[in-house]
């Protein structure tokens, strides 16, 4: 029998194409063919302003038309992303006139709301029915949701899930990449700040420390030589150098401290526990505004003011009891730091004490009001009023 001659090139190409056909999954037929899912993921991943982008993405006419045509009783699409204070930011299509009942419902949801979980779930609210599709991050420690609302009867869960899976995957991919980007920027900023702090410490702070000593000697010399004109100038120089030195130290510590660990309440609690170890003062934290405080737009500034006030309390108050009260009032979120010590008036005000000036400066920057006063019952009260219109929504 004549052996069959097989062209090797043909053989190879035949086998490769067979393999490709066998092992490459058939390109999934796009359920909403006119929607560009890669573009959705890309735009979310690269945006600087998620809350401006998502409404536009959800409003895409191709997406809305596909939803209306293929999902029976479809009403609207939402993306819920975690926000401070265990709440969710509700993003919906820019042109969507959301029913106020729906909006209230979403805004009232908290991260620990019963019934919204890490698996696909269905909820009802009046004539509306929703399906929550969880969008997980790397560590699955926070949860965003893609929510589809139906007015009237909900189509079968599986059918809707299949139709919306590519959209859910695209939003999830985009949010993951966006989160990675935000985290790397934060890391880079933190590293840069730490390196600046080290530079400041090794250069300017050292020189200012030396100048502080020398200017102090100069003042002493002027005093010794009974030269009042020179003494006045020397004292002024000494004071300004002292202020510059303190400001530099403050800058260094601001850059070195990472500030907020996970939330402001926790950071204040940590600062308190740290100081407790270095004093015999009884500290009490009375936090009545746990949700509101997490929405402050200047958490680092707030934490530094609280830290400074607590440090002053430990250093100068001679108190045996201190308490921090955080409460929400009609127009402001108020942080009170009170002690039963000797009070502010009776303390001799040192010329080289700049802590209060720096606290005031920080408060001004965040348009908050800082008051330091004696308490009627004795001791000092530091009051920081942060206007409520500052709370991020």
């Amino acid at each position, binding site marked *: 029998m004549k052996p069959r001659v097989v062209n090797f090139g043909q053989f190879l190409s035949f086998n490769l194409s067979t393999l490709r056909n066998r092992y490459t999954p058939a390109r999934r037929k796009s359920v909403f063919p006119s929607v560009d899912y890669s573009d959705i993921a890309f735009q979310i991943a690269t945006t600087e302003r998620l809350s401006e982008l998502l409404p536009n993405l959800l409003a895409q006419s191709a997406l809305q038309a596909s939803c209306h045509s293929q999902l029976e009783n479809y009403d609207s699409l939402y993306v819920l992303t975690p926000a401070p204070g265990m709440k969710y930011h509700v993003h919906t299509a820019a042109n969507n006139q959301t029913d106020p009942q729906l909006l209230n419902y979403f805004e009232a949801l908290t991260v620990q709301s019963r019934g919204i979980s890490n698996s696909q779930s269905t909820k009802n609210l009046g004539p509306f029915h929703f399906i929550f599709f969880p969008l997980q991050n790397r560590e699955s420690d926070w949860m965003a949701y893609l929510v589809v609302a139906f007015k009237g009867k909900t189509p079968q869960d599986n059918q809707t899930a299949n139709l919306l899976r590519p959209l859910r995957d695209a939003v999830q991919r985009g949010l993951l990449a966006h989160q990675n980007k935000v985290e790397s920027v934060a890391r880079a900023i933190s590293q840069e700040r730490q390196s600046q702090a080290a530079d400041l410490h090794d250069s300017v702070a050292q020189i200012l420390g030396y100048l502080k000593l020398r200017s102090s000697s100069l003042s002493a010399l002027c005093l010794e030589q009974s030269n009042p004109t020179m003494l006045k100038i020397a004292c002024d120089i000494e004071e300004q150098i002292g202020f510059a030195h303190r400001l530099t130290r403050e800058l260094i510590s601001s850059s070195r401290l990472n500030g907020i660990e996970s939330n402001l309440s926790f950071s204040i609690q940590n600062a308190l526990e740290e100081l*407790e*170890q*270095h*004093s*015999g*003062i*009884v*500290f*009490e934290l*009375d*936090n*009545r*505004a*746990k949700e509101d405080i997490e929405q402050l737009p200047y958490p680092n500034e707030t934490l530094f003011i609280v830290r400074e006030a607590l440090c002053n309390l430990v250093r100068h108050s001679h108190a*045996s009891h201190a308490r921090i*009260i955080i*409460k929400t009032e009609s127009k402001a979120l108020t942080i009170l730091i009170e002690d039963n010590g000797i009070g502010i008036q009776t303390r001799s005000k040192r010329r080289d004490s700049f802590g209060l000036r720096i606290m005031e400066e920080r408060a001004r920057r965040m348009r908050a009001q800082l008051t330091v006063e004696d308490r009627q019952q004795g001791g000092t009260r530091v009051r920081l009023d942060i206007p409520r219109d500052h709370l991020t929504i």
Partner: protein
Amino acid sequence: MAGSGWPAKIAEWLQGVSPLKLNNIVDSLSDAVIVIEKHNKLQYCNQHWSRLSGHSPKNSQNQVFSQFIHPEDRVSWQVALQKFHQSRESQLLWLRIIDTSGEVHWCEIRVQPIYEHRPFPVSATLCDITPQIRSDQIKEARYRSLNSLVNRVPAMIYRSRNNVHWTMEYVSDGCLELTGYQPEKMVNNSELSYGSLIHADDREGVWCNVQKAIQANRSFELCYRLLHASGEIRRVHEKGCAIYSDSGSILGIEGVIFSLQTS
């Protein structure tokens, strides 16, 4: 009876006691007594509730009880109430009540069933334990302050038994820097004795000098060599004294040991 604020059923339940007398008795108590209805609403409260919260019984009626509780304690309250409904057993809880002036009162609250087979109403007593909490906080702060002071001193502060091993009852955190060993390894000779760390040639001298001093009822001051965990020999300086019982017997030795070389 119902007109005086008590649920009619409770009045029936307390048959034989005149309503006036009953109200007077409950109002005379130095604990707050409240009755909570469905939806966590206050149905009744006695006079002491007013002294505690600043709200009159009339103004408190039909108010949701949680609104008087500190926001941080509301969840614990709900959990305790759920447990109570599940087990029907009295629940005890510490929580904070905020009065009308904004002051916080620590209270021990005990919830009890009124009817055996009905979830509501329930009665609760609130005892103001703020002075006790304050006193505990002061004690804790004193202990914490002293403890952190002792442990931050760059030396080893100790209390030991008067034996050749110098068995340690207490050593401060400075032990690690001085000897290279964790304090817990030294306490009660759990892993090693302080005596074994003293250089063999100095052990007898240390023992004799300490015994001489305590026999003479005076403090002692010594310099000797110590074997550090790293293998180094370090010179140390020790100051100490004996602690005596009323009868004059030696209970132990207390003192402080510094390293004479910088680490």
